[in-house]
């Protein structure tokens, strides 16, 4: 039986919030804005917890990188059924410039340290829409352009979760209370041997251009005329 699943959970601006760009165009407004777990990370946690409920894995560990507040996100994962959490402390400038490269190095280092057989993440890349464990292999059905593809892979493995993988459970109040007793360990990126320097620099953040109102025309001639005017033809 696969021992341990690592699940990455990211604290992001809540999907229902209208995002605003900061006046100085250096980023988006995050102060005082509602944050919650990335919905795809919720799906990843749900999948991991279901594997545990089916007794296919022994332990689910939730990981998040960031400042103190990400502990809330880890607690939500614990309330959904993860057994313990790991908070990788990254704050200030390092957090602002934390990108996929650094996070993947951190997760790889943790997966090794924790001897995780499986890492489940919210999607980017190819996506799993069904996951089962068969002995010491994982069977994954993933959605590709042409339809569905079934593959069998060895463990340790990394799987990313697609929308259709499952419907995540709500964190119930009794489970939130019970989760307070579960442990969250803190660790610094340096302890994992990861260098956080970013090779990317954000120059400017802007809102997408406002949609312009359309114009109604009466005849095809008008349409052609307007398109010529706008230099489109």
């Amino acid at each position, binding site marked *: 039986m696969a021992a341990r699943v690592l699940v990455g959970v990211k604290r992001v601006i*809540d999907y*229902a919030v209208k995002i605003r760009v900061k006046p100085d165009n250096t980023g988006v407004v995050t102060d005082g804005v509602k944050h919650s*777990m990335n919905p795809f990370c919720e799906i990843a946690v749900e999948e991991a917890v279901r594997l545990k409920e089916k007794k296919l894995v022994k332990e689910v560990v939730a990981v998040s990188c960031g400042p103190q507040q990400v502990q*809330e996100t880890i607690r939500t994962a614990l*309330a959904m059924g993860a057994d313990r959490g790991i908070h990788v402390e990254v704050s200030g400038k390092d957090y602002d410039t934390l990108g996929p490269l650094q996070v993947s190095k951190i997760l790889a280092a943790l997966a090794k340290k924790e001897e995780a057989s499986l890492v489940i993440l919210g999607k980017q890349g190819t996506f799993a829409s069904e996951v089962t464990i068969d002995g010491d292999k994982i069977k994954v059905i993933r959605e590709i352009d042409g339809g569905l593809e079934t593959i069998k892979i060895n463990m340790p493995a990394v799987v990313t979760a697609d929308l259709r993988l499952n*419907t995540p459970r*709500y*964190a*119930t*109040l009794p489970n939130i209370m019970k989760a307070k007793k579960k442990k969250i360990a803190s660790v610094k990126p340096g302890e994992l041997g990861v260098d956080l320097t970013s090779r990317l620099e954000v120059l400017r953040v802007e809102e997408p251009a406002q949609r312009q109102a359309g114009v109604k025309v009466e005849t095809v001639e008008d349409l052609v005329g307007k398109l010529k005017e706008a230099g489109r033809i």
Partner: protein
Amino acid sequence: MLSCSVCSLQSEGLERAVAAFRSVSGDEGVSLGEAVREQHGRDESVHRCRPPDVVVFPRCVEEVSALAKICHEHQLPIIPFGTGTGLEGGVGALKGGVCFSLRNMDQVLDLHQEDFDVTVEPGVTRKALNSYLRDTGLWFPVDPGADASLCGMASTSASGTNAVRYGTMRENVLNLEVVLADGTIIHTAGRGRRPRKTSAGYNLTNLFVGSEGTLGILTKATLRLYGIPESMVSAVCSFPSVQAAVDSTVQVLQAGVPIARIEFLDDVMIGACNSFNSLSYPVTPTLFLEFHGSSKSLEEQVSITEEITRDNGGSDFAWAEDEETRAKLWKARHDAWYASLALRPGCKAYSTDVCVPLSRLPQIIVETKEDLIRNNLTGPIAGHVGDGNFHCIMVLDPNDPDEVQRVHEFTERLARRALAMDGTCTGEHGVGLGKRALLREELGPMAMEVMQGLKATLDPKNLMNPGKVL
């Protein structure tokens, strides 16, 4: 087809008012557009569209108050509008006037997790609130089906499938901020107050709950929250008769099972659901049940209930705990409205809404079914049997005046049947436009006079949603 008279639009008074509205809410906050007005003149009932003369979109309570003052000065009717998902024609602007669309006031304000309360603006819908709350382990359980605005739900004293365990809006609104017809702003329980119970003064909060926009505009509601239950189990059971199903319901409640949902579908409805969803439930009266609690308590609740249903001749008791199977089990109940419509494609549906004491439920359902058959009407029945409340989903061809008339007469007979059994003509949809005469019969002249006196005190010019409720 539009009843909005062009001449009233051109009246000077309205023009002056519209100019004043623009100075309060800006050009974007005021609309005279035909499509916008029509959208705000109808809800999900069968009543025809009655568009207002103008729609305003205030962004805060101060704007609502300023706009109301202008309406008051110019004697313009005020019609508050949430999501337009009402079922009794409550938003129709019978005398024209100004529709106050509250959708831009959509913030969840103060959440107090440990106190189990939250305050919301009128544009917040119940699904938006529950999504907002999802990380806290709390939820607002009143579930009327549609994704209605919470203040709209307060306005119609909405209920839903969960009421048997969690109550209706009457039990779950702690405080309201209301703008009266003349622009005065009041807090029915005092500003910011949210104790779980109180004996302070007259119960103003519940005066406005259910007032359907005829006493004031609701601009904030403080709501009672509950913990999301640890686990849920859904179950289905078939019965040989309506009596057997209702007897089981009464006994489950008497056994002290804290059942969360207990829904009744009659044989016609089950037949419709079978066709619509390619299911194969036995075509007899059926109960759909839901239990909330810890895993241990659920085991006990389900086993007691199963025994009771068996003792009443129930069969095919099926239950499930995981979400996907539960959804499958309840699909029939969820799709009841559409399954009914599918019985006669091209027709519209109208839902009746009477509520009687539990013990009278078998009799009223049996008599109602006989009435349907005798008058050749399509009316599958779904009911919140734990509350004694049921709906006949009347499927009718709106272009057949004879059928329209027969349905109308049927619903009047049904309402009077319920009144004769110590019940009410509306369990959860409200009085709106169509049940005012029935309200008079239900309350009697003395109580009606008191209600009219209250209305005259709070809205002497009768500007607040005229032509509704009273």
